[in-house]
């Protein structure tokens, strides 16, 4: 054969291969033969090159017709499959409902999480220069910590000294009072360098971004501010007062900063003002503001990092703090102050996949369980010539179709759920507001993925059935014992393992939250009102305080630089009696007023608290906490010499007392060394302890406000409750807990849908068996037990799988907290009981229905 054909020139192999891939199999043989024959005859008459040319052009011309031809026939088969799929769907309503409902819920969750993840990942990506913007952070080797703030001279120096850095912008944010005529608004804004507007892309509504901030008495405000202040008038050129003492002219209006920006500023004032007012703007060691830099395209920031690391020490800053760059796009998810958390992105993505998997398992299980009803169809198709691949395609196509139907329901569901979800996640998500094609492609990908996943097992399982067996009436066994049932059992167990895992996680999260809320913090957090000091209340604090205390409903009033739930200013350079000169001394510092300890009901364990009777207390007394005493290794600290660095130099003094450790930081961290002292005039908040009587509360607040208005009529009265501030610290935990709760509920719901369908299927298949058992005298409860027993056993196995994995995962999560609850066996037992109970309810419904049915009906089935 080979020899024979070698007489003739051969057409190009690659083209022939291409041809054979595109031609429908029915006509492939004949058509390729024709091609070859004509090729040979042309080669004989006009030469091999002509023939090759002809072959190429001919193939190119023919391929479209061949492709169209094979699509034409495929479409014919597809129409048939579609018809069959729709008929099936309509005939088996309960089954289709379970399938579609489960998939729709799973998909809706998946898409919601997808939207959320996408939103989180898109933070700060709308700037034109996004890729080249970095924030300068200070990495202090002494503390092993990073702070996103640097000192005033850093920004300009970086720009000047390093050619890779095109531009730099300093940002110092603050809360400011903006007044225009009789309108007052208290908003967050910032002093920024003019280059801020060039580095970042915040589009201008009015004004010129290049000059807007270059002449000092100017201010750029957000659109929202402009509307609030001026209504429909043109804001440009209008005069504003900032904090009652600065006259500024509006030179620009920017669009409101988008939600997905880590900035949320309502006004921008020139940095020059900040610099002029700073007491020492050339000081390199006072880290107080944010600095952003714009790098040249394709600069390696890692290399630049090593170059800028030592810049501070060149300007006589103590060894330790080093400059580093942090990519703008990483701030939201990776930086400590970013607000987002990359771990939650992973956790929720995994949950999304889990829930979708549960929904797909339902589909797989139910479809395979139903296979007996389709066996005849498969047999017929096989007998009339369908090959296995055709059947696989048919089943996968069917499940993709069901997925699409589910998607329609899922999208409806998302519209209903979005407001709740946004509320929960504190977001402004919407379903594809920008007509983003990627998102739509994402949906389609989810559908096809789910369809394939769900359809693959039934497709391969069903297509493998032997037509002889099917048509002879050998049904597929659905009960345990066979390999196929084993797989299905494994799937149900997997489903419930995931559900139980989620139940345990939710319970642990709530237990930890409960633990946090009920832990003895070492101070009283209830019935305390916090008022930030501003204007005259700060300067005339003593008078203000005495006015407050005149009301009997107010039991204590004190002032502090930071509120006890979160004190975060860490300082260095303390000195004390017998200090090892090589020892590093770092402590958290808080400036307080005399009655601070009484107001918060803290306990003094050694020495005494501050008292008005000792005038020297406000000049040279210190109180440490137990952790600090331990850190400085003093046996009897009271009376020992101690000094702290303040801006005028060292403040020499003595330790007068030791306060019992209290939680001045979230329970994630160990209690750190803390030093407390009095420096009048450095207070930021006044803390007011009121009578615990709730009915008096609003009267008390009105009273405080009336006093406030006497002292600071130009500033709006603001207050908050200490316990609310405390709760806010754990908002992300509460949010996660609640979201976990909802997801757990949905996971269980979908799993139960599947279980329900499976139970229905099994009782239907065992109708005859149940009939006979009843005739032989079995009771309803016995039969119910018989039908539910298997399922219960599965759930128990699921528990065994879920327990260790949940234990490890939650143990890991709890490691985030220095102070944590124990997981405890009670949680596991509770989760197991809940899963068993829910599963039993689901299954027994079907089982009881089967058990109470009249055996006459079931046995007449034949």
């Amino acid at each position: 054969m080979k020899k024979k054909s070698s007489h003739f020139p051969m057409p190009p192999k690659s083209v022939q291969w291409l041809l054979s891939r595109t031609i429908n199999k029915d006509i492939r043989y004949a058509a390729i033969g024709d091609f070859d024959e004509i090729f040979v005859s042309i080669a004989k008459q006009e030469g091999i090159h002509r023939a090759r040319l002809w072959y190429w052009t001919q193939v190119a011309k023919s391929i479209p017709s061949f492709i169209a031809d094979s699509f034409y026939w495929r479409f014919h088969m597809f129409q048939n499959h579609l018809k069959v799929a729709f008929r099936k769907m309509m005939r088996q309503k309960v089954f289709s409902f379970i399938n579609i409902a489960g998939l729709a819920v799973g998909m809706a969750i998946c898409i919601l999480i997808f939207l959320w993840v996408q939103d989180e990942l898109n933070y700060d990506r709308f700037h034109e220069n996004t890729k080249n913007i970095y924030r300068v952070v200070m990495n202090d080797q002494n503390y092993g910590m990073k702070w996103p703030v640097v000192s005033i001279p850093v920004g300009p120096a970086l720009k000047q000294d390093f050619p890779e850095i095109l531009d730099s912008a300093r940002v110092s944010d603050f809360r400011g009072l903006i007044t225009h005529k009789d309108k007052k608004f208290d908003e967050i804004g910032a002093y920024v360098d003019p280059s801020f507007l060039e580095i970042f892309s915040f589009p201008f509504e009015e004004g010129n971004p290049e000059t807007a901030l270059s002449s000092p008495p100017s201010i750029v405000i957000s659109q929202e501010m402009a509307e609030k202040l001026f209504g429909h008038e043109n804001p440009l050129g209008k005069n504003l007062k900032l904090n009652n003492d600065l006259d500024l002219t509006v030179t620009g209006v920017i669009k409101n900063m988008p939600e997905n920006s880590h900035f949320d500023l309502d006004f921008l004032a020139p940095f020059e003002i900040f610099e002029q007012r700073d007491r020492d703007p050339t000081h390199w060691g006072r880290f107080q503001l944010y600095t952003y830099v714009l790098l040249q395209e394709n600069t390696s920031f890692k290399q630049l990092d090593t170059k800028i690391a030592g810049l501070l020490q060149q300007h006589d800053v103590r060894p330790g703090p080093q400059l580093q760059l942090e990519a703008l796009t990483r701030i939201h998810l990776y930086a400590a102050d970013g607000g987002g958390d990359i771990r939650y992105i992973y956790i929720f993505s995994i949950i999304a996949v889990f829930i979708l998997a549960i929904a797909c398992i339902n589909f797989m299980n139910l479809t395979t369980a139903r296979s007996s009803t389709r066996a005849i169809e498969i047999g017929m198709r096989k007998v009339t010539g369908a090959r296995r691949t055709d059947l696989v395609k048919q089943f996968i196509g069917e499940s993709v179709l069901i997925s699409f139907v589910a998607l329609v329901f899922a999208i409806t569901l998302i519209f209903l759920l979005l407001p709740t979800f946004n509320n929960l996640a504190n977001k402004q998500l919407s379903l594809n507001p920008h007509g983003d094609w990627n998102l739509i492609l994402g949906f389609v990908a989810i559908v096809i993925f789910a369809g394939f996943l769900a359809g693959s097992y039934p497709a391969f399982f069903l297509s493998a059935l032997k037509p002889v067996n099917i048509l002879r009436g050998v049904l597929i066994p659905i009960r345990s014992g066979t390999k196929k049932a084993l797989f299905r059992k494994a799937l149900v167990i997997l489903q419930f393992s995931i559900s139980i895992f989620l139940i345990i996680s939710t319970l642990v999260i709530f237990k930890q939250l409960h633990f946090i809320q009920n832990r003895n913090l070492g101070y009283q957090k209830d019935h305390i009102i916090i008022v930030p000091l501003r204007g005259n209340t700060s300067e005339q604090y003593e008078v203000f305080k005495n006015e407050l205390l005149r009301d009997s409903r107010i039991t204590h009033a004190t002032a502090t630089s930071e509120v006890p739930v979160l004190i975060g200013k860490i300082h260095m350079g303390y000195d004390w009696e017998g200090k090892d000169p090589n020892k590093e001394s770092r402590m958290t510092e808080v400036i307080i007023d005399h009655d601070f300890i009484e107001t918060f009901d803290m306990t003094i364990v050694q020495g005494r608290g501050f008292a008005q009777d000792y005038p020297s207390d406000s000049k040279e007394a210190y109180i440490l906490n137990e952790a600090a005493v331990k850190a400085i290794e003093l046996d009897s600290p009271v009376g020992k010499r101690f000094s702290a660095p303040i801006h005028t130099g060292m403040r020499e003094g003595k330790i007068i007392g030791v306060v019992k450790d209290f939680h001045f930081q979230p329970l994630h961290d160990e209690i750190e060394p803390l030093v407390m002292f009095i420096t009048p005039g450095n207070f930021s908040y006044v803390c007011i302890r009121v009578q615990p009587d709730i009915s008096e509360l609003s009267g008390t607040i009105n009273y405080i406000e009336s006093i406030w208005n006497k002292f600071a009529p130009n500033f709006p009265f603001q207050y908050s409750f200490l316990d609310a501030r405390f709760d806010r610290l754990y908002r992300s935990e509460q949010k996660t807990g609640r979201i976990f709760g909802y997801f757990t509920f949905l996971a269980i719901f979908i799993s139960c849908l599947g279980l329900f369908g499976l139970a229905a299927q099994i009782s239907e298949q065992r109708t005859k068996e149940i009939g006979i058992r009843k005739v032989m005298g079995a009771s309803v409860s016995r039969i119910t037990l018989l039908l539910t027993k298997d399922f219960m056993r599965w759930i128990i196995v699921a528990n065994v799988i879920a327990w260790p994995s949940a234990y490890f995962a939650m143990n890991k999560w709890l490691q985030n907290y220095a102070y944590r609850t124990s997981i405890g066996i009670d949680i596991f037992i509770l989760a197991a009981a809940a899963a068993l109970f829910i599963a039993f309810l689901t299954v027994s419904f079907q089982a009881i229905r089967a058990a109470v049915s009249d055996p006459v009906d079931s046995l007449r089935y034949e």
Partner: protein
Amino acid sequence: MNLLSRSEEIVLLAIWKLREDAYGVTIRSLVNDSTGYDWSVGAIYAPLHRLVKKGLVKTLKGEPVPERGGRHKIYYEITPDGKKALHQIKCVHEAIWQDAPALELDES
């Protein structure tokens, strides 16, 4: 019964005219000669495939041919249904053309 499409009609008629010698190459060359266009092999096989599926034409395996890489020739033979369809389309043509005024083409 549906009427044949124009390409189906042309191919079917070619098979009918070629009688015993109707296979891909001959069908194509006859169609090419009578229409004056160069029909690609694909353009022939698309209608041919439909004719086979509709049962108007059946295939016969011929002798293996070395020029075809040792493949058999696949002959096409018209079935009684195919004859009926041809007859029907012929009647339709005649009925439609009947009494139509003579077409005079401008030579331009």
